[in-house]
């Protein structure tokens, strides 16, 4: 069977969804990822679908093992996201969701840097509608900031690609040594989408402002495409080890004091991407396998966590920890699925995080990075603390907020159940996932010591949480925002802009006012002499002129005799 480029299935599907409604639209929505997956099964290895353009060859499909892994992952994520959003009567969200998933597939199977750039920008544009669809002022402003940064990342990528093709004549997707302007531009572009420290705030800004269903889509694609591209271009780049370690560390502090529970998840997402970036930096086959496997698991369990919080937001209209609590009474199924997601991200034995995160950590020790290993271990305990305990605890337990609502809609429950099943399947039977990894796996997750040490780490973290609460040391959830790197462009830059504007206005005023005064003065002086009653415009009697002429001549006569 002849296969087409994977993104085409989604783009055609989006067109059909735009033209239909009701049950037919729902059927098409569900069919798209299934048809896409069948299409992917028949996709040959290597290059296909090349189009010559302006002297370059755009390669739309280049498939290898790593590409197929992300390809199947994105189909799975798209399917779960579609099931989760099936109750919506919102054409914009359905169409943009499909286009967005298709763009991610286009980027994964892109065979050259220019094609990658095209889908890189399409990812930005199509996903922005999932934020705009919230249809609030706040969301619109967040979406515009998001779009600006994402498009900016694309322009950096394009600049890097153009300079590189100029210098080397190559637009191939291949490992790039991190030297020279072109390489750094591309590194920065990928770094923005990967949420490197100080470049990360677009994620914590925009994702919590998207619709309850939109965030589920958003969490699956953009950052994982970036991780995939990072693995293609900068594998084994030592700087990534430290960038990754920092990424695992700093967001957990923010997550502890953040009130918006979807923003807590956004911070914990950066923490998880940190493990992947670190693994890519270490660059051994174990580390890279770990990074990729963790990307797979993260898409599913982070999607599940965002689904459970989306369901809470959908039912209660609230998402702040300070407003929630006691929801296990009304939403027991959502509570259960959320706990599965929490156990998976915390890497409990038998849950998916357990079989992938540790590969990166073992690789860090093996390659002689004990400090990085300690940081990752700290972050592992921390992620359990804020994502594993805090999210379920403050939403579903803690003090009873008095909110009584209905259980999530059936389609949401099904999507959560499917995601939870994948989390448990990958955790309990990791070998199917391991088989899909780019390198042969020589790693056994279920040894007595690994199960024991991970249990020790997690249960004693839980113990710390309990004691902190019993001793009243745990910081309460407060309605607040916390200053982060975004302060520079959301507060400082506008302030500088305002000052500059004020200065400009003042300058203009002084020029206009001062200038006008000067003109008026000059004009006044001029008019004093030339106006009808001015000295130069007055009509003089002829006699006085004859008199003054006589005076002048007389003076001349006298002077000439002296």
């Amino acid at each position, binding site marked *: 069977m002849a296969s087409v480029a994977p993104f085409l299935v989604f783009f055609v599907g989006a067109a059909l969804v735009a033209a239909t409604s009701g049950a037919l639209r729902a059927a098409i929505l569900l069919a798209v990822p299934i048809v896409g997956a069948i299409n992917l099964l028949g996709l040959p290895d290597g290059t296909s679908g090349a189009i010559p353009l302006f002297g370059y060859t755009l390669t739309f499909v280049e498939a290898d093992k790593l590409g197929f892994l992300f390809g199947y992952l994105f189909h799975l994520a798209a399917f779960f996201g579609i099931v989760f959003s099936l109750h919506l009567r919102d054409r914009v969200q359905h169409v943009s969701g499909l286009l967005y998933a298709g763009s991610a597939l286009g980027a994964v199977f892109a065979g050259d840097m220019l094609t990658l750039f095209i889908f890189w920008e399409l990812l930005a544009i199509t996903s922005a509608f999932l934020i705009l669809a919230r249809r609030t002022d706040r969301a619109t402003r967040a979406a515009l900031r998001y779009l600006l940064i994402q498009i900016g990342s694309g322009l950096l990528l394009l600049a890097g690609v153009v300079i590189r093709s100029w210098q080397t004549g190559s637009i191939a997707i291949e490992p790039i040594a991190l030297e020279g302007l072109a390489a750094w531009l591309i590194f920065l572009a990928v770094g923005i989408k990967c949420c490197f420290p100080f470049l990360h705030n677009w994620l914590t800004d925009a994702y919590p402002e998207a619709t309850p269903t939109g965030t589920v889509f958003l969490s699956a694609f953009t950052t994982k495409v970036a991780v995939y591209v990072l693995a293609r271009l900068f594998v084994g780049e030592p700087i990534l080890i430290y960038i990754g370690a920092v990424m695992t560390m700093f967001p957990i502090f923010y997550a502890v*004091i953040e009130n918006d529970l979807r923003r807590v998840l956004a911070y914990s997402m950066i923490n998880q991407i940190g493990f992947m970036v670190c693994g890519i930096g270490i660059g051994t086959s174990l580390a890279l396998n770990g990074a990729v496997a963790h990307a797979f698991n993260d898409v599913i369990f982070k999607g599940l966590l965002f689904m459970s919080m989306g369901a809470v937001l959908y039912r209660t209209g609230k998402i702040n920890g300070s407003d929630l609590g006691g929801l296990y*009474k009304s939403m027991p199924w959502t509570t259960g699925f959320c706990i599965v997601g929490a156990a998976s991200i915390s890497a409990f034995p038998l849950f998916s995080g357990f079989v992938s995160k540790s590969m990166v950590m073992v690789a860090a020790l093996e390659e002689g990075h004990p400090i990085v290993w300690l940081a990752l271990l700290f972050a592992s305990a921390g992620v359990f603390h804020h994502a594993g305990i805090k999210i379920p605890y403050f939403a579903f337990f803690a003090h009873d907020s008095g909110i009584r609502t209905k259980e999530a809609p059936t389609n949401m429950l099904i999507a959560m159940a499917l995601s939870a099943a994948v989390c448990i399947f990958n955790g309990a039977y990791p070998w199917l996932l391991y088989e899909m990894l780019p390198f042969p796996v020589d790693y056994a997750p279920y040894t007595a010591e690994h199960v024991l040490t991970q249990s020790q780490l997690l249960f004693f973290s839980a113990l710390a949480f309990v004691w902190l609460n019993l001793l009243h040391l745990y*910081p309460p959830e407060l309605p*607040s*925002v916390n200053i982060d790197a975004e302060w520079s462009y959301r507060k400082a830059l506008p302030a500088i802009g305002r000052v500059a504007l004020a200065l400009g206005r003042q300058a203009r005023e002084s020029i206009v006012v001062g200038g006008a005064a000067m003109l008026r003065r000059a004009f006044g002086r001029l008019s004093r002499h030339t106006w009808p009653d001015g000295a130069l415009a007055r009509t003089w009697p002829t006699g006085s002129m004859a008199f003054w002429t006589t005076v002048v001549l007389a003076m001349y006569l006298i002077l000439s005799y002296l």
Partner: protein
Amino acid sequence: MAPEPEDKRHIFDNPRNVWRVIYALHAICAVVFAADFFVHRHVEHPWEALYGFYCVYGFVACFLLVLIAKEMRKVLMRREDYYDG
């Protein structure tokens, strides 16, 4: 689904059930800590070889995490409408 009666008692409305969970957690912690003396661990790094390393590290890490984050609030926390002005 029928709406539940307002006064229905749920499992954690009873404080004794909350305490049961807390006691169970302490018991599990005691067991996994004790297991350290019986399970031979292959160690990659000398720190790992210390008895109870993962227990102590997990506990201390979380305590520090929360206490430091609390201090960070003093510097970083602003009103909810901070960026809306």
